[in-house]
């Protein structure tokens, strides 16, 4: 009986000791977890804020100016005072197509008076240009491009049609062949 009581007593002590150990270990384990969490929480305190900015650009097609036909004066007759090529009606008018971004507006500039020089001599002629333009390929309905209507627009295919004519005074011209350059400048607006 005493032996049984002693065994029961020691068994209880063991249970109590193991229970204490278990509790201590559990408490320390929880403490450890808490420490780690605290450490991580401290690192996680870093606040960061962000913003986004858009970058943008609109790319438009570069402009090409394609010469289809050059202007033809033909031969001047003796005594002829002037040569005139009507850009709206003459078949001798030069013909060019400007190609760019569809529907984009552009400005067309040119120097209306250019000097033609004699190829085999010292003679010069002053040529006064006239230009007409159209958004469709139809010379007869093209409009003369004066200083006040040079802000124009490419059509839906990105084309604009240009006819070049002009007049030259032959009164004091020496016989011979003449040549000169003509420059059209087109810029997007």
């Amino acid at each position, binding site marked *: 009986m005493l032996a049984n009581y002693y065994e029961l007593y020691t068994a209880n002590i063991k249970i109590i000791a193991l229970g204490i150990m278990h509790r201590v270990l559990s408490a*320390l384990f929880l403490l*450890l977890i808490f420490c780690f969490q605290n450490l991580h929480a*401290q690192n996680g*305190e870093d*606040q960061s804020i*962000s913003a986004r900015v*858009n*970058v943008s*650009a609109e790319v438009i097609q570069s402009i090409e100016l394609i010469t289809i036909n050059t202007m033809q004066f033909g031969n001047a007759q003796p005594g002829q005072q002037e040569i005139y090529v009507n850009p709206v009606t003459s078949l001798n008018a030069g013909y060019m197509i400007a190609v760019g971004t569809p529907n984009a507006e552009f400005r067309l500039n040119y120097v209306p008076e250019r000097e033609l020089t004699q190829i085999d001599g010292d003679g010069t002629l002053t040529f006064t240009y006239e230009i007409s333009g159209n958004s469709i390929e139809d010379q007869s309905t093209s409009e003369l491009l004066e200083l006040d209507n040079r802000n124009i627009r490419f059509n839906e295919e990105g084309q604009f049609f240009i006819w070049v004519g002009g007049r030259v005074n032959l009164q004091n011209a020496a016989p011979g062949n003449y040549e000169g350059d003509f420059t059209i400048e087109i810029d*997007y607006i």
Partner: protein
Amino acid sequence: MINKKKRNNALLGSALFICRTGFLFLLIMVFTTQLSSVSLKAQEIDFGDFSSKYAVTLSELNPAEDLEFGTVIQNEGVKSIDLVDAKILMIEGVKYLDVIVDITADNYLFLDSDVACNGTNTNCIPFTLQAAYANRGSNNTNQAVLMQIASNVASAQFPILARGNQPPGPPPTPVYEGYNPALFNETAYIYIYGSLNVGNVDAGSYSGEITITVSYD
């Protein structure tokens, strides 16, 4: 019976020994954990660790504006936006504290947001980021400091208000009841600009994105 008693005492002693050993082991672990966390930051008093108490804001000077290159023509080549025309952002925060600023930009602007670009396509334009900051209390590009940039990522660390030749200021005032952040805040300015290299690309609308991240050190 005496033997049994001795054996039980021995068992009890073993249990207590394990308990003590375990306790010591865990104590050492806790100690070393704390020690390691301290030693990592032993070289620096990092007031930013307490920055969760302080607000920092990032805003655009002109919110409606992109970094806008406008109209460019095919094969135009390099088109730049200079520092004086840069997109401006404002960082408002505690003037004593350092901020870390990271700016990451797309390497390309994409046609109609089509991001399928390998650098040789005709639907993307190379973009080169440039960035600077001014932290002398005013929006002044003459005071701008250029940021280091690598692979379209710009980074910098600087105080909201430059200290100049002065020693570092005092620790930030703790947040208290009635704390007025305006007394301790200042604004620094970020300038974002850069350039495009427009080659033989398709016509149309191109866009890209720049992300700016700010945090206290």
